[in-house]
């Protein structure tokens, strides 16, 4: 989609540093190029927090404008992507604060306090998602709904780590939590999704092995 995927991290950072210098030097139109690789990240991060399309789009736009206005404050001691994601997280949180919050937040906290153990969904022995299953819109929609249904704190971490493939340190920095919290929340988010989606995915997989279900410890 963008050049970002084919550029190595270090080269990308060098290019960005150069772009930023030129923008600050007056070539402000280059800001369009600077943020292009992050459009998707901006929207999805905002969406993981505000949970509606219009709100997420507004947050992404506000974040871009804010990033532009404050570009001179970007010191380069963190990655530009981390700086940008922090801005959009703040925009989205502000928006959420204005709208509603208290109720959902307290629910999330109650969930986080729970024992971390879980029982995964029993499965047939599928190894890969069959390509035809990947093509099915239905499966994508199921995953979208399952992610949307995650409690906020889990969805936010999952979005940054697994949807945007950010590392633990950057995710922790963007959300203002420590790395251990990121790991714990990510684990729980993944397990919740596994439990929710596995029975559905089962339908699209190889034939079951005879007697397999009878050996499940929880069946």
């Amino acid at each position, binding site marked *: 989609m963008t050049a970002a995927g084919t550029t190595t991290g270090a080269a990308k950072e060098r290019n960005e540093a150069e772009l930023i210098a030129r923008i600050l030097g007056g070539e402000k139109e280059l800001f369009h190029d600077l943020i292009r690789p992050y459009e998707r990240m901006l929207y999805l991060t905002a969406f993981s927090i505000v949970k509606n399309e219009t709100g997420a*789009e507004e947050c992404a736009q506000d974040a871009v404008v804010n990033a532009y206005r404050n570009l001179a404050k970007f010191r380069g001691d963190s990655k530009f992507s981390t700086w940008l994601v922090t801005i959009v997280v703040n925009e989205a949180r502000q928006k959420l604060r204005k709208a509603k919050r208290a109720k959902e937040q307290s629910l999330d906290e109650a969930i986080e306090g729970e024992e971390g153990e879980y029982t995964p969904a029993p499965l*047939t022995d599928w190894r890969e998602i069959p390509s035809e299953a990947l093509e099915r819109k239905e499966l994508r929609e199921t995953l979208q709904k399952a992610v949307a249904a995650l409690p906020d704190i889990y969805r936010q971490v999952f979005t940054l780590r697994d949807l945007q493939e950010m590392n633990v340190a950057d995710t922790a920095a963007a959300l203002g939590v420590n790395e251990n919290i990121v790991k714990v929340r990510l684990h729980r988010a993944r397990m919740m999704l596994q439990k929710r989606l596995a029975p559905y995915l089962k339908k699209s997989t190889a034939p079951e092995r005879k007697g397999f279900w009878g050996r499940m410890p929880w069946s």
Partner: protein
Amino acid sequence: MELNCKHVWAHISEYLDKSVPADLLADIEQHLEHCEICSAVLDSTRNILVLTADNRTFELPLGYSERLHERLRKELGSASEEAMK
């Protein structure tokens, strides 16, 4: 050390991220070799992550990019030089 399934499940996420502590890794892998339940849990979780990272799963609204750059164009057009300082 002999691990049970619950121990393995607790480390599935770390395992996928290749961040399982070294002393535990061999035990988990040994367990996964003979436990088809845990291997299926691992594979299903991994597959969900593959599907999640696929750009087609979480799509952007139609026209999002155009609107974003349009907003930025307006900002660049109206921004005074002070705003950059």
